[in-house]
């Protein structure tokens, strides 16, 4: 079986969906003959035609709005926003309509839409190409927000997103697009939604993370294992809803919680997780909750991006202090 990168696994899931579901339509900027700027849709227009893999005009609000109109007519649009930093013009459609239409019409109009978008930094890209804006989306009721951290997860979660009858925001960690390969059978098997994933079992501390930075978290956990600190690493995968019960179960065993995310700290998802553990799991805690996050600064241009994104040393230090507290 071929080993795939994360971006190839996404391509495989898109191809599987186009092949097996005639309602699936892809739209976005440069996704056709060019195959997308990251090649996530490479070869798909050639295989499935220009009507099912459509290049759109350069207008993110249009892409999201058209997806709504198409989905309301029974199609399953999978739209690409070229980079998450360009999501803002689409937020009117996503937050005001996509998230609300089922509720607004009391179930009359439903919108099975997937909005795919590259997420996060670390790839030496220009300004606006490295943003981690998941909190913007997670704040809105009516949306699911996913962020895979491995090729197999990307394949299974994207299939689940496409099959879900409601809108799903699918955040793709750019740093992991080509970082590693993994066997990903093209079997059309979806992963469950609304669940976090256990990446590493351990008894001393629960470390919650998602997306690209799970890579640095696992490296830190490996380092710390040599120091007899056993991390339980949970990959959120579903950023909205958050699988709080799994986090609480883990914290009940470890008594310690570290949250690592690339996005800025202020009003980030780490705050939501920390607050929930404080509300529902405070008496399990042996140490203060620790957040290791991007700073409350503008995401810098790429010369400084690795000073912004929490690295292995910062993550390991945070976990160490939490375990020793």
């Amino acid at each position, binding site marked *: 079986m071929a080993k795939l990168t994360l971006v190839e696994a996404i391509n495989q899931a898109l191809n599987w969906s186009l092949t097996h579901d005639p309602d699936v*339509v892809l739209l976005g900027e440069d996704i056709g003959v060019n195959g997308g700027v990251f090649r996530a849709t490479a070869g798909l227009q050639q295989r499935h035609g220009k*009507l*099912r893999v*459509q290049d*759109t*005009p350069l*207008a993110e*609000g*249009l892409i*999201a*709005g*058209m*997806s*709504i*109109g*198409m*989905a*309301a*007519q*029974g*199609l399953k*649009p999978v739209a690409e926003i070229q980079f998450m930093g360009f999501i803002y*013009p689409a937020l*009117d*459609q996503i937050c*005001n*309509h996509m998230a609300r239409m*089922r*509720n*607004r*019409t*009391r*179930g*009359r*109009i*439903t919108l099975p839409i997937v909005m795919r978008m590259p997420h996060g930094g670390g790839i030496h890209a220009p300004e606006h190409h490295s943003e981690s804006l998941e909190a913007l989306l997670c704040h809105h*009721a*009516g949306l*699911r927000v996913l962020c895979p951290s491995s090729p197999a997860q990307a394949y299974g979660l994207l299939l689940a997103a496409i099959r*879900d*009858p*409601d809108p799903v925001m699918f955040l793709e960690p750019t740093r992991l697009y080509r970082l590693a390969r993994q066997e990903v059978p093209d079997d059309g098997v979806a992963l469950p*939604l*609304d669940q976090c994933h256990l990446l590493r079992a351990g008894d001393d501390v629960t470390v919650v993370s998602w997306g690209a930075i799970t890579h640095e978290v696992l490296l830190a956990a490996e380092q710390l294992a040599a120091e007899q600190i056993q991390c339980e690493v949970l990959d959120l995968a579903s950023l909205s*809803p*958050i699988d*709080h*019960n799994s986090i609480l179960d883990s914290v009940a065993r470890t008594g310690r919680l570290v949250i690592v995310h690339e996005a800025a700290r202020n009003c980030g998802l780490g705050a939501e997780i920390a607050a929930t553990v404080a509300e529902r799991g405070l008496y399990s805690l042996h140490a203060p909750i620790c957040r290791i996050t991007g700073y409350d600064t503008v995401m810098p241009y790429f010369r400084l991006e690795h000073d912004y994104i929490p690295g292995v040393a910062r993550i390991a230090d945070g976990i160490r202090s939490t375990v020793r507290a």
Partner: protein
Amino acid sequence: MSSVATFHIDHEQLLDADGRPTAALPAFAQDASELLHLYRLMTLCRLFDAKAINLQRTGRLGTYAPCTGHEATHVGVGAAMRPEDALFPVYREYGTQLWRGVTLTEILTYWNGDERGTHFAGPRQDFPWCVPIASQMPQAAGAAMAFKLRGEARCAVAYIGDGGTSQGAFYEALNMAGAHALPVVFIIVNNGWAISVPVAEQTAAQTLAQKAIAAGIPGVQVDGNDVIGVRAVVERALARARSGGGATVVEALTYRLSDHTTADDATRYRPAGELEAAWQREPLLRLRRYLQAQGQWDEAQEADLRADCSAQIEAAVVAYTSLPAPVSDDMFTHLFAHPPAELAQQQATARRYAGSGR
């Protein structure tokens, strides 16, 4: 220097303000029953509007957006559409919606702050009222794309106001519709005022129809108080779209004979005399004059019609006021097909405290 592009904008009017034909009338207008159908619904809209404003003023309805003055445009567009087409309204196009099967009860339910009003029993594919201005436009383009993909002879019809044509989403949708020859008709209802801002402060463009030209699609202006003209122009645009000819922009020139909503007071910004002058061009009067001149309408029929409309409206008022009150579960039930487990606890909390927050 040489000229590389020119454009012109046609203006259509078939019935003038006195109800006199200004050109040969189309075939549908030769059939008196067709015209009476249009006139009856326009009258229902006018009387319904008065009732809804009264309900709001007496505390039985939330803020309401009136349609008085727009009846010819709204009913004309409805009559030009086919049932299988899809409508993307703004929030005051009741004439179109009623033609297509939305009920007075649903309209009142919506404006009384209850989502059940958008669960149209009639045109299931029509979009509900759209409050964020112009955001319905790309959605209509998307529906049109779906029709095109499936090879269906259906069209999307999207409304927008004069103020809405200043929004980016308006241009984005027109541009897309032009680039892909989508089966969609955009109706700009130019009623002169975007709440308090007149068209001249909205744009320097001589017409709003010409905004279509930059998107490579035709734009046409019609007297929006002339229901025969509106229906004829929109029928032509829909026939063109249905046969693969692509999108059209129709600018209907009319006047908002009311406040923007019941929360607005147009005397704060509209020049004196403008409203009175506009009443001389209003849409019901001219069609009634034409029908009377044709010997198709008299005082007795008018009285019967008004009584019949009032009875329909009163029945709708009874129906929406006797709907069982919504319950807190309704906030949760329709959010997702498969609600996240975390919501269950909040739903239970809402149920426990339901009614206690008032």
